[in-house]
């Protein structure tokens, strides 16, 4: 029984492989805020949300659409999805009730397995009941298959058979073992075998011959004798106890897989609810094939920022078809970094099958997403900082492919403009010629302008907007790089200069 709600033909657990630069992405895109909102206090959902988002770029378009459909179903049937999550969580917790001791003798394994199985059969029954009641309200391929499977596999026959095993292995009529004289004339191996089925008179059945066998009793106070009996039973039930414990383990792993995969959708529901309460847009994106270089969107905003500020934030529109270089210049505090983050967030959300924070969004999938953001100034000397930046760039380059996407934020500015520009030029030229999709926020005028004058067909230039009075709209518009980044504005604003506005 497979859950298959994350991949059509695979388990999430076996496929999840995080992007090599996950830590940098979490930091640069402020993903923590997003994960926390999805989790709503549930650490497990936090973990799964993180794994799903940071492994999303390995998904193909079919998988993205497969999940989109399941997510749409989930939004329509929130209560059922949340109930499945609750059930699987509870089933997994039940394990602790019977497995708190450390002893691992076969008899105690058998005993604990039976206790666990009894509980698990109860949860399976509830799950089946959910399927019976709600399956018809779900449209997606993923949920339809999942519910049909539950109905088929957890039918009456299965339940009856499972209970029968449990009853038999409780040994109300004693246990019968077959064995053979082995080394040292000790019986080996002791193997549990089934008692004859007849309810009555089985003991008589065992003595068809005249010879009545050989019977003895272990004295009730003979502790070592009782232990010896236990050892024989242990040996005899060892294999069947293992089979039962492993069966139990398999059911736990089924619930574990179910919880994992449904956790992702539960997280999406949590986020969906939050955004709705802020009145913020979200929509299902259209993923485009990886060989295209397209970004077309309306009303794209930084979801982490909106969640952190608990309000709607500025959104941007752009049409970038057949472009793999987007250079963003313009005013300080003009929303450039926010825009860059919104690009990264939307890409990760789209590729893991989620809705995106935009009125509409369509982009090609990328094989990996990288971020190269200027790090906070630390005690390191400037030369050390450039060294650090280039070393980070080098480790990115270790993993780059032509279908990668990379976000630069004020990179290579740790040195003077000429040197920084030259480094940036050499790096970016190489990247775009290999087809890598590049978003580059910079105030290196020399760097940005040198690309602008080349009038590259595959490049788009965006600029942080500045109104005549110097106020920012935080909106980006298409435009030629300008030589100043309006630091004077900032200065004026902060120092409250009376000449502000010139």
């Amino acid at each position, binding site marked *: 029984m497979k859950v298959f709600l994350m991949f059509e033909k695979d388990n999430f657990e076996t496929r999840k492989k995080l992007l090599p630069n996950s830590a940098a992405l979490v930091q640069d895109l402020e993903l923590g805020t997003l994960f926390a909102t999805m989790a709503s206090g549930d650490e497990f959902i936090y973990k799964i949300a993180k794994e799903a988002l940071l492994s999303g770029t390995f998904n193909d378009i079919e998988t993205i659409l497969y999940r989109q459909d399941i997510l749409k179903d989930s939004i329509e049937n929130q209560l059922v999805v949340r109930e499945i999550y609750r059930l699987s969580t509870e089933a997994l917790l039940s394990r602790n009730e019977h497995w708190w001791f450390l002893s691992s003798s076969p008899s105690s394994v058998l005993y604990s397995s039976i206790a666990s199985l009894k509980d698990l059969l109860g949860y399976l029954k509830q799950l089946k009941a959910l399927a019976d009641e709600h399956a018809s309200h779900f449209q997606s391929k993923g949920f339809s298959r999942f519910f049909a499977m539950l109905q088929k596999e957890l039918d009456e026959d299965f339940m009856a*058979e499972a209970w029968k095993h449990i009853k038999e292995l409780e040994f109300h009529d004693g246990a019968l073992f077959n*064995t053979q004289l082995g080394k040292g004339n000790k019986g080996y191996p002791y193997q549990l075998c089934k008692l004859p089925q007849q309810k009555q008179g089985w003991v008589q059945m065992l003595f068809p011959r005249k010879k009545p066998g050989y019977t*003895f009793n*272990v004295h009730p106070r003979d502790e070592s004798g009782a232990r010896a009996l236990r050892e024989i039973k242990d040996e005899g039930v060892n294999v069947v106890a293992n089979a039962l414990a*492993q*069966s139990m383990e398999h059911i736990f792993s089924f619930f574990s897989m179910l919880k994992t995969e449904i956790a992702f959708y539960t997280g999406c529901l949590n986020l969906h609810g939050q955004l709705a309460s802020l009145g913020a847009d979200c929509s299902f994106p259209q993923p485009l094939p990886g060989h295209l270089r397209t970004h077309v969107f309306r009303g794209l905003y930084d979801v982490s920022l909106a969640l952190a500020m608990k309000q709607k934030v500025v959104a941007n529109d752009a049409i970038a078809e057949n472009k793999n270089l987007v250079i963003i210049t313009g005013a300080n505090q003009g929303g450039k970094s926010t825009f860059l983050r919104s690009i990264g967030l939307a890409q990760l959300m789209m590729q893991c099958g989620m809705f995106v924070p935009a009125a509409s969004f369509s982009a090609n999938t990328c094989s990996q997403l990288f971020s190269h953001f200027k790090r906070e100034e630390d005690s390191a000397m400037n030369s050390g900082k450039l060294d650090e930046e280039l070393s980070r760039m080098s480790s990115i380059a270790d993993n780059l492919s032509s279908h990668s996407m990379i976000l630069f934020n004020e990179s290579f500015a740790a040195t003077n403009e000429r040197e920084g520009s030259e480094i940036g030029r050499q790096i970016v030229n190489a990247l775009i010629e290999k087809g890598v999709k590049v978003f580059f926020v910079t105030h290196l005028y020399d760097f940005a302008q040198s690309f602008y004058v080349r009038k590259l067909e595959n490049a788009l230039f965006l600029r942080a907007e500045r109104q005549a009075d110097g106020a920012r709209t935080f909106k980006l518009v298409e435009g030629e790089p300008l030589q100043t980044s309006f630091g004077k504005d900032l200065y004026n604003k902060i120092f409250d200069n009376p000449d502000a506005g010139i």
Partner: protein
Amino acid sequence: MVFESILFASTVPDDSLHLEEPAFMVDLNINQVVDTALKGKEEYNLKPYFYTLLANTEDIKYRQEVMQDIERQDLYRYLKAFEGDMRNIRKQLAETEKLYYQYHKERVFLDIVIFYGQAMESLAKNLPHLPIKSRGFITFCNYLTSYTESLQFKNLLAEARAIIHELSSIKYSVHIKELRVRVLDFQPGDDYTEEVQATFAKFKQGDVKDYRSGLSYPLGMNHVEAKILDGVAYLNPDAFARLDAFYKGNTRFQDETIVRFDREVQFYLAYFEYIENIKKAGLEFCYPQVSAVDKEIDVTACFDLPLAHKLVSEKKAVVANDFYLKGHERILVVTGPNQGGKTTFARTFGQLHYLAGLGLPVPGSRAKLFLCNNIFTHFEKEENVLNLRSKLEDDLARLHWILGHCTPDTIVIMNEILTSTTLQDGIFLSKKIMEDLTRLDVLCVWVTFIDELASFNEKTVSMVGAVVSGDPSQRTFKFSRMPANGLAYAISVAEKYQLTYSELKKRIIP
């Protein structure tokens, strides 16, 4: 020739073996060799064989042949397997003694007898195909073949196997309900495990933990198992009566000559294993030509055995030396720098003769040695405070004893003796002793700082330890025949520090 012993060509009564460690073994560091070689072989009680030098060259030849056979790897491998088998049998028999329940004990015994039989058959089958050349192994091989083909041996095994077969085919059932146990004739029934697995197979997501307990099945038996066994015996009386009869009738099933062989052959294996790594490091061993009359000796590339053992394990180089005595030469007088290997050289001389006298290969590429009747050593010892005599007195008492017990066939090794007196006294006393040794015509190595001894008479040969020229702090550990010259060493040290006469003169500013 009927096989009796793998160690002696002729019958040697056990009381001719030395049970005490000869005094020279500590001085020559041979005790280290013996202790290491016999580690883990204590049960064989082999030390007396290492304490006893052979009395005639016939026995030496007998052992050399045996050892040469063993040095062909295949035989060694079979002997090790045999050793393991016999050790196993002893261990299991000892454990069986402790077993309490009759039918349990008897069954374990049965297994041991079968194991013994297989071990004998296996060796008897394999030995004839090996390239055996020694008288010792050829006669042993014949003995073993006739033993394993004897009716007595064959009947023993056949009966044991038949009983095992009968017992092993007994199947039975045990029903346990709370504290009541029933032993029943076999009740065919279905296996649970597969059914359980089939029911829950649908949930399988991947491999899960294996809950099977790693139960161990100890040899012992508890009283419940014994009761169950009684039940099985009750249901199958004939098979158990037969087992009982076998046990009572065959308590001494092992052949004494083979048991003795197992012990004695360890003498060779112990030494073989001791020198194995040294050989692998590229050092050569050889079978010496040993004479009981000819005192001309000649050795190429010999080395100190326990030292080599240590150096090889530390991956350090071993220095080998050559020496010979011809004509009337009897006494090697060894001089040279301190820490230059003089003591090692003297020990090597003694070790070679000792090992040759045991019939073993010696450390060296070629050797012609003398069969001595004993080795006397006198190495400088710590002063004994409990002893009322002075050190010089001790020295002389010991020397007196040695000279009193020497025969012309004895080897004497002296190391830095008579140092606790003036040089003049030392020279005087040494010369006196040298005269006695010369008169006795013994073979001798004498390590000394007294140059005069090196050219005492026609029987003495001077061997000098060499240093690296120009750097006297470096030793070569090499010894060669040359006149003793204590100054040579002193001068080279002076040169190194520019303190020779001419050097120092130039450095003194006018």
